[in-house]
């Protein structure tokens, strides 16, 4: 990470505050690699963060401008910022699963509905890990956590016919992808395409929390074993045969809208106000 850190991170923040062996660093690195491939400089992108491990550890590491919101609210802040900043300035958010798919889901859906031009990276560690490992909305069925001592009893967004990406697609998201932290080039490429996409884009990346989730649920304490566990369940190929009963993560680009879909929020609002200014009214039919 050193080369990328020197290039893109604040020196005081380059040393991660995440636990040793945590998969979050791999997610962070993939984002920086995608940024590098796109030739984005620190002044070209404003980086926002949610709360929890993902928000907390990544906030204000970016050399350029940074912002963070209270739990689940960063999507609303970013939508406002989208209108305030020049359209060519990129906005990227790193948030956790609890922030995006639980506490902030309503804000996230509205952000997708408006098709605000920003990229959300949801780094998913299967629950609320920064508070000690309580279950959340992607915690696998039956997983033992601090708040599900008899196994996860609450239906999640990922299994039994539900997929959170379906919800986001229905809300109007233009670009959706899913990866796990053990994936390399394809994940970086997915993030790159998400940043390039003009409109709302979201990349869901699952990573292992070695301190809480893995030591409790599958009972894995070694980071290498946790990464192996995730690799065995990562399915980047649509044709691959994975046992239906097993928990697996189908990865890759899930949805990409064509160019004739919902206009980007800022663009649409600017055109709307211009029309009113020039013509003294707009079509209200």
């Amino acid at each position: 990470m050193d080369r990328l850190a020197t290039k893109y991170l604040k020196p005081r923040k380059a040393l991660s505050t995440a636990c040793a062996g945590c998969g979050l660093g791999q997610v962070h690195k993939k984002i920086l690699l995608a940024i590098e491939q796109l030739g984005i400089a620190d002044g070209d992108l404003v980086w926002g963060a949610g709360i929890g491990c993902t928000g907390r550890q990544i906030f204000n590491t970016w050399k350029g401008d940074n912002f963070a919101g209270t739990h689940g609210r960063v999507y609303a802040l970013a939508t406002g910022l989208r209108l305030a900043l020049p359209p060519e300035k990129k906005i990227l958010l790193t948030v956790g699963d609890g922030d995006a798919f639980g506490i902030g889901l309503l804000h996230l859906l509205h952000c997708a509905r408006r098709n605000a031009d920003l990229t959300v990276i949801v780094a998913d560690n299967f629950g609320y890990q920064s508070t000690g490992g309580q279950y959340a909305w992607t915690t696998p069925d039956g997983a033992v956590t601090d708040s599900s001592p008899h196994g996860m009893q609450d239906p999640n967004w990922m299994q039994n016919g539900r997929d959170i990406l379906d919800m986001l697609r229905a809300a109007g998201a233009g670009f959706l992808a899913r990866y796990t932290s053990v994936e390399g080039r394809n994940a970086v490429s997915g993030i790159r395409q998400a940043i390039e996409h003009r409109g709302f884009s979201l990349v869901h990346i699952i990573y292992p929390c070695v301190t809480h989730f893995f030591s409790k649920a599958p009972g894995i304490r070694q980071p290498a074993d946790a990464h192996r566990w995730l690799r065995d369940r990562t399915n980047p190929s649509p044709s691959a045969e994975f046992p239906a009963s097993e928990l697996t993560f189908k990865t890759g680009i899930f949805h990409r809208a064509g160019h004739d879909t919902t206009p980007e929020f800022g663009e649409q609002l600017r055109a709307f106000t211009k029309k009113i200014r020039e013509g003294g009214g707009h079509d209200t039919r």
Partner: protein
Amino acid sequence: MPITLLADQIVIDGWETLPLPETSADADALGLRVAERKAHPGPDFYPTTADLDVSPVVLGRNTGAACSDWTPTEEGFDTEEVEAQHKHAWRLIYKVCNNRHLLPRAEEIEVADADVIFVAYGSPSRVVKSAVREARRQGLKAGALRLRTLWPFPDEIFHRQRPVKWLSVELNYDGQLVREIQRAGGGGAHFLGRCGELPGVAELVEAARSLSAGRPLTVSDPFAKEAW
């Protein structure tokens, strides 16, 4: 500096006309000019400059700004250290308290010779102003304080008054502001509250009449602590 605006439902739901300029001629007519927003150049953000207009966290200028609800260190980095939270909280408290003279404190209405002073914040203060006028017309020595900043509480204004009966007019039952008035006003604080409606001018005048005659406030329902 975090600022809390306390508003009641009448203020929140109220409508007043706000003219927004559409052309530069409109702006001139309203006496408005557009000021380019200044930004702190970074990379160290704290303490900010003495120039109050320069914000350390204007996003989009590539100053390395960090805008968040987390407690900042001297250099502008977020911290979870307990001692840093205390230090930061005390810094903000002293910053406000030491500059309290810069804050709008209270409007004083006919207080110089008053025997009864109404105290109000927000919507009831308009009724209170009318009540002072009406009470004066009827020969009662009533005045009012319309509080504009609740914290730091404008103790100095209370200390300045000669001994009076205070009447806190609030939109709640049993009183909240009245406890601060008891503390700052040296006792003699009474309360009149309404929920979901404003008090009427007539009942405030009657309350002032009772208090100046040394009578207790009358209540319609002895179980509802709407006046005491």
